[in-house]
């Protein structure tokens, strides 16, 4: 289990994340939502040790993230950030193989190859696995990076706005795959999302941030209702039920 205790990060004098304490439920999808600049990505970066917190701590199995050995941590928690510009030319398969680095240190065993195959299969990239990344569309590239994280085979998968630059079809595809990872393989997914309807339809828990603080934290049903959403976004957002999904109709709302 991942537990966040009193986490604070300042850039200059401005607190970007302030005194955040939450528990990430295992075996579920937790979405971080909130307006721009709420500190969602910064929080995710601190949980995944990409960024050091000023105060507070992140605990994985009751041990501070900073005390974990880097390669052991990499076998438990994976993170994918949004900007992934590469200076090297890699094929999809080479990239996905890097996901096995924490286990194999670059020398892939037969078992590693199997994980790589599965991850590529999972993301529907089999027919283009030998293509170079710079020949791919934004969506294909994103899927290749997600495949790398899947090959890493960690219990916790943290994703920072994985739906950025993706069209509707691929967004739905990726959210369905994440759902499958949780339901079939018992993974825990933490995801930063911009579109609250994806959060509503696919996640089990939602953490809403605003100005670096947690404003709401609970099950999806507790968050996706007009009252809670007004508090988070300062907008009047009607919520409609459609085939058992709660859809927020915010496109023509008045502040």
């Amino acid at each position, binding site marked *: 289990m991942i537990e966040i205790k009193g986490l604070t990060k300042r850039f200059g004098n401005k607190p970007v994340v302030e005194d955040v304490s939450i528990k990430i439920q295992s075996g579920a999808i937790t979405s971080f939502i909130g307006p721009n600049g709420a500190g969602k990505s910064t929080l995710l970066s601190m949980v*995944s*040790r*990409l*960024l*050091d917190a000023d105060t507070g701590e992140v605990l994985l199995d009751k041990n501070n993230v900073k005390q974990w050995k*880097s*390669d*052991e*941590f*990499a*076998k438990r928690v*994976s*993170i*994918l*950030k949004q900007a*992934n*510009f*590469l*200076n*090297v*030319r*890699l094929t999809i398969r*080479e*990239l996905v193989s*890097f*996901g096995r*680095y*924490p286990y194999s*240190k*670059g020398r892939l065993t037969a078992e590693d190859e199997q994980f790589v195959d599965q991850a590529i299969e999972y993301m529907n990239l089999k027919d283009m696995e030998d293509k170079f990344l710079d020949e791919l569309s934004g969506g294909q590239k994103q899927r290749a990076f997600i495949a*790398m*994280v899947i090959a*890493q085979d960690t219990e916790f998968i943290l994703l920072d706005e994985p739906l950025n630059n993706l069209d509707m079809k691929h967004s739905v595809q990726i959210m369905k795959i994440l759902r499958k990872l949780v339901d079939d393989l018992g993974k825990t997914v933490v995801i930063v999302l911009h579109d609250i309807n994806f959060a509503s339809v696919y996640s089990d828990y939602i953490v809403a941030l605003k100005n670096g603080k947690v404003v709401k934290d609970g099950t999806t049903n507790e968050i996706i209702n007009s009252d809670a959403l007004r508090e988070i976004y300062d907008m009047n957002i009607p919520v409609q039920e459609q085939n058992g999904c709660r859809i927020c109709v915010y496109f023509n709302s008045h502040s």
Partner: protein
Amino acid sequence: MRKNSTKLIILAIVAVICILLYGFYDIKGGFDYAFPRRMMRVGAMIITGFAIAYSTVVFQTITHNRILTPSVMGLDSMFEVVQTLIFFFAGSISIWVVNQYLNFAASIVAMVLFAIILYRLLFRADKYPIYLLLLIGMIIGTFLGSLVSFLQVLIDPVEYLSLQSRLFASFTNIKVELLYISLAILLLAFAYGYRILGQLDVMSLGRENAINLGINYDRIVLNVLILSSVLIATSTALVGPITFFGLIIANLSYQFLVTYKHSVHILGAGLMSVIALVGGQFIVEHIFEMNTTLSVIINFVGGIYFIYLLLKESRAAG
């Protein structure tokens, strides 16, 4: 992968041909006199070539930039500062110039200390991006360059001439003792450098992906910066500064060998260095008949290639 190994074998064969040509072509007078001296130069060129190849390739990985070389950090300037200060305060017949060991040691120690102090003071990856470090390195380098010019106009003209010959890279007067020391440093650096090659492969995915995969990113960046300073310092103290050389061979290797593996690129770039240096020296000695120096040719060709790279990058960006 198999294509890459074929290419490496071809490079190795060309390198050996260059070495044999340089070693045996047109030996006049005593073979026993000329041949060992030529081989000593070849040795210096191999050491320099691999030191520059390694340090440039890894430096470009940690800076995620293919038109930077470790010399932008002001290391070349530091070498000029040390030499100029020695000539300015002690003079060309002092022990600091006459004794090769002392001169060599002073240069290396100053350059490595300079690099370590710079990195230790400034390197806080979470606070400052590496580009700030580079910028400060460049500014200090420019400052040191100005300081050198200032001292050089004050110096006695005769002293200045003998100083100038030291500030140009040259493979012709290499002391065999320095060669052994350099080789020892190179081997020690490679012993550590070899172990982190796999981690450097992962680091070319960027800081965040590398940390995700369990790389102790910031520590390796610091170690690599220091390691490449040691290598550049050694090669500069041995033969003098070769500004553009690392840039050319690293980029040629990226174009010639398609892989993300540092081990392949370092070997490839190293072999290309040997070809360029030994072949270039052959041309200098037998075609230009010593009317020019290798570093002039390298900087000339390198400068043209650098402009080509800049134009290519700006076209890719635009």
